[in-house]
């Protein structure tokens, strides 16, 4: 028995709100809001319940390595004593929240290293494929790869963070037919084999993006992390209609043509974000199914959070480790692997939804890919809402063109000075000039990307690259173009206005304000996310 007493996990569900529907829990940063949604014109989309995890993850991993997909030999056949082997793995941005130990990367890397040891491979490097994200700390690396791997490789300099600004460590391998430069880690390019270890949390992840993005730098990224790509993806989460995906696939072909041999290992997890039991478990249950214990637990959590100072609240949330379980692992040739991976992601995440809505509401949680152990600053709030959540659709956006997006988050005017120095300047200097992504890209991106201090902090401290806040803003470009208005509930008023959005104190106020754009009695759709799901909108 696994899911609230049900024998099998139930699929995603669309609730039509009526007068008897209970208030709905909205994530609200490091807190929650209970919101009563208007009856008879509101629907709430719930994710599917967590799929069953694999009973023997280590066995499944070994099986995948020995039984590759596509045009690939089993991993042992690719390993030989004098070879140069590079194992690259996803960075701190995956999964969200970070998962309980052992992290899937640890399991996979240990399995790969066992095979490498059996084959007598000595020259092994492990690289956190972070592209222009911040470097991972020792603790974070230990969490991802495990202490045994860390202690065996890090002290001798064979486990490290990718450095996309190392002039001696990067190489341009060619151009795509579209004129896109393919810049790549020199160590990976010179290796006889690159093994990539992925955790696929959303449909955008994985495939050629793992290496073509994760082991590249600004020279490559600028070709697909841009406004044009975002405006030409419907959505960037849907591989069939994503210009971002297409660009990465073109770059993948250049890598292949440059004789970069990649053995791709992709994994999927279920959406057991908050646990089937425990203090947060009610967050992945449907409100009308809450037990008295869930209700009391939620109220106690709410009260406790209210009494906590902001820093303690942030620490409490940051310490949450998701009990994700491995639902699939596949290895071999990149594209063959990714096709299966995507199907497995969809199996957990796709929820069929009929038609669009006038107003889309969402409660944004405390975490996004770029604030793990950090602060969710206003730019990241924008990116999470208008970038990630808005784009978690296949077919059509959940909200109609010209509709309104209402998102709830405290949106504090606060930045992590070590992790996000360029974000501070972006917020203070760029957004005071314009909020138009295309204008921002044209006028400001290059100077931030080439700023020596940001590069210095990216390489030597724990800072996101100078170009990164731009990409966060571009991530929302499709939504900004599509929507008639964006309203932020419960956010810092000045921060919300700085981004060109409208602040509202309550959801009721926001819904009232939305009628100026979409007319009276609009239809409303609420996405109950996380746990993450993807709407399949017909």
């Amino acid at each position: 028995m696994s899911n609230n007493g049900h024998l099998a996990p139930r699929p995603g569900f669309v609730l039509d709100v009526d007068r008897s529907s209970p208030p709905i829990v909205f994530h609200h940063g490091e807190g929650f809001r209970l919101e009563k949604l208007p009856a008879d014109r509101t629907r709430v989309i719930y994710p599917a319940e967590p799929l069953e995890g694999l009973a023997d993850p280590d066995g499944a991993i070994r099986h995948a390595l020995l039984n590759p997909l596509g045009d690939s030999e089993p991993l042992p056949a690719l390993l030989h004593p004098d070879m140069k082997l590079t194992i690259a793995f996803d960075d701190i941005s995956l999964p969200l929240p970070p998962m309980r130990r052992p992290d899937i990367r640890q399991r996979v890397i240990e399995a790969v290293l066992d095979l490498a040891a059996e084959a007598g491979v000595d020259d092994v490097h492990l690289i956190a494929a972070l592209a222009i994200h911040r470097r991972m700390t020792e603790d974070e690396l230990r969490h991802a790869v495990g202490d045994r791997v860390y202690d065996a490789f890090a002290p001798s300099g064979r486990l490290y963070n990718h450095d996309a600004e190392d002039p001696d460590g990067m190489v341009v391998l060619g151009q795509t037919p579209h004129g896109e430069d393919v810049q790549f880690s020199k160590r990976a390019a010179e290796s006889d084999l690159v093994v990539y270890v992925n955790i696929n949390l959303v449909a955008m992840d994985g495939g050629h993006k793992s290496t073509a993005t994760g082991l590249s730098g600004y020279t490559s990224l600028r070709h697909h992390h841009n406004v044009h790509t975002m405006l030409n993806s419907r959505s960037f989460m849907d591989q069939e209609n994503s210009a971002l995906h297409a660009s990465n696939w073109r770059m993948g072909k250049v890598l292949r043509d440059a004789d970069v041999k990649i053995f791709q290992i992709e994994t999927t997890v279920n959406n057991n974000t908050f646990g089937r039991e425990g203090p947060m478990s009610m967050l992945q249950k449907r409100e009308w199914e809450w037990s008295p214990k869930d209700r009391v637990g939620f109220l106690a959590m709410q009260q406790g959070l209210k009494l906590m100072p902001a820093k303690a609240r942030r620490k409490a949330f940051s310490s949450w480790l998701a009990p994700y379980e491995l639902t699939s692992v596949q290895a071999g040739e990149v594209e063959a692997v990714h096709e299966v991976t995507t199907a497995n992601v969809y199996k957990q995440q796709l929820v069929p939804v009929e038609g669009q809505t006038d107003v889309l509401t969402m409660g944004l949680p405390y975490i996004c890919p770029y604030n793990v152990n950090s602060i969710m600053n206003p730019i990241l709030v924008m990116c999470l809402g208008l970038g990630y959540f808005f784009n978690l659709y296949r077919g059509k956006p959940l909200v109609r063109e010209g509709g309104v997006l209402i998102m709830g988050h405290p949106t504090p005017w606060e930045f992590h000075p070590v992790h996000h120095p360029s974000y501070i300047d972006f917020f203070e200097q760029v957004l005071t000039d314009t909020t138009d992504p295309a204008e921002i890209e044209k006028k400001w991106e290059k100077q931030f990307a080439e700023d020596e201090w940001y590069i210095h902090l990216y390489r030597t401290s724990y800072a996101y690259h100078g170009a990164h806040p731009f990409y966060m803003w571009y991530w929302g470009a499709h939504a900004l173009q599509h929507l008639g208005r964006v309203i932020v509930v419960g956010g810092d008023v000045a921060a919300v206005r700085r981004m060109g959005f409208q602040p509202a104190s309550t959801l009721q106020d926001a819904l009232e304000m939305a009628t100026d754009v979409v007319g009276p009695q609009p239809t409303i759709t609420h996405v109950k996310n996380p746990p993450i799901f993807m709407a399949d909108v017909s």
Partner: protein
Amino acid sequence: MKALQFRRNVPRFAAARLAGSLTPGGGAAVGPLRLTDLEPPTAPGPDWVRVRPRLSGICGSDLATIDGRSARYFEPLVSFPFVPGHEVVGDLDDGTRVVLEPVLGCVSRNLAPTCDPCAAGHLGNCEHTTFGDLEPGIQTGSCHDTGGGWATAFSAHPSQLHPVDDTFSDESAVMVEPTACAVHAALVAGVTDGAVVTVLGAGTLGLLTIAALRTFANPRTIVATARYPSQRRLAAELGADLVVEPDGIRRAVRRATGSRAISLDRDNGAVDRLSGGTDVVIDCVGSSASITDALAITRPRGRIVLVGMPASVTLELTPLWHREIELVGAYTYGTETLPDGSTARTFDLATGLVQAADLGRLVSATYPLHRYREALEHAAAAGRRGAVKVAFDLRDEKEREALMEMST
């Protein structure tokens, strides 16, 4: 005649200091400034003429005096009681409309030979402001004998007067004197072609300095600080490339100059000071905080120009020493040497700039003399209230007409 007169009165001075610290401009209500009836001014010398002000501006230095914030440095350089007001457009008795160049140098003091600075045309540097036929006073507006612009009449030496073209509005004309200060500051800064210049403060002087830099120098980038939205808009309109709030200046200059930041905690992302920095800072605030900012953002061997009157400040001067930064003052005007080597009177340059940049629009509000408390409070809160220059409007004062009739 009607005049606002500033008397020596220590208890009232202390009260003004207290009131001014609570509410900027609050010193007007309790301090030594009084609206009073005075005898019309008598000419201090044979050549002197009477000026009947039309508009008379309120300057930051006036506000410092009213609120008891002026440095004791000035005590021997003024003569009590005096009538403030040195930004003046007014009428002579023959109907000529003039702008006042208020500095009281050797010529107006009937001193011959003149001191070296006056001989060189640098009136603001006159060495004899406490000597000669006049009581002490560095300018009209601080000298008992001359009177000042916050009255229906005062006395002026012909060398102080500049006739105003008919095409000039009174609002434009009253901006000539502060613009001359800004032109002087921009030229003292010695901005080389392609330099990055930072202007701290976007009050009247800051805004005018930006305009002057755009006209009389050729900087690559002007970065400016502005606390209020209207100041931000005007700073950009007048030529600043990047306008930020004061708290953001270190980050903004770092980016504009491509410098790296130095954090007190190594590489923690804070911008405590810069590795390089701006070539020139023109500080139009003059506070401990602004000069500290200036020292943090000026490149080695760069220059800081103090235009805002600093009074007493507390500073860490190690960066000045270590980075060999020049700290220079810019006070008033006189004769300027332009980048092409030619020379010109600052007032002439300022007059041209006022016209070219339509600086009369910076006069945001005018008040009759009897509403002086409101006027001074408005001027002291100009930025917050969306204003730039606040001035007294004496054009409709009855006493002004009476003086005219007496003279005819």
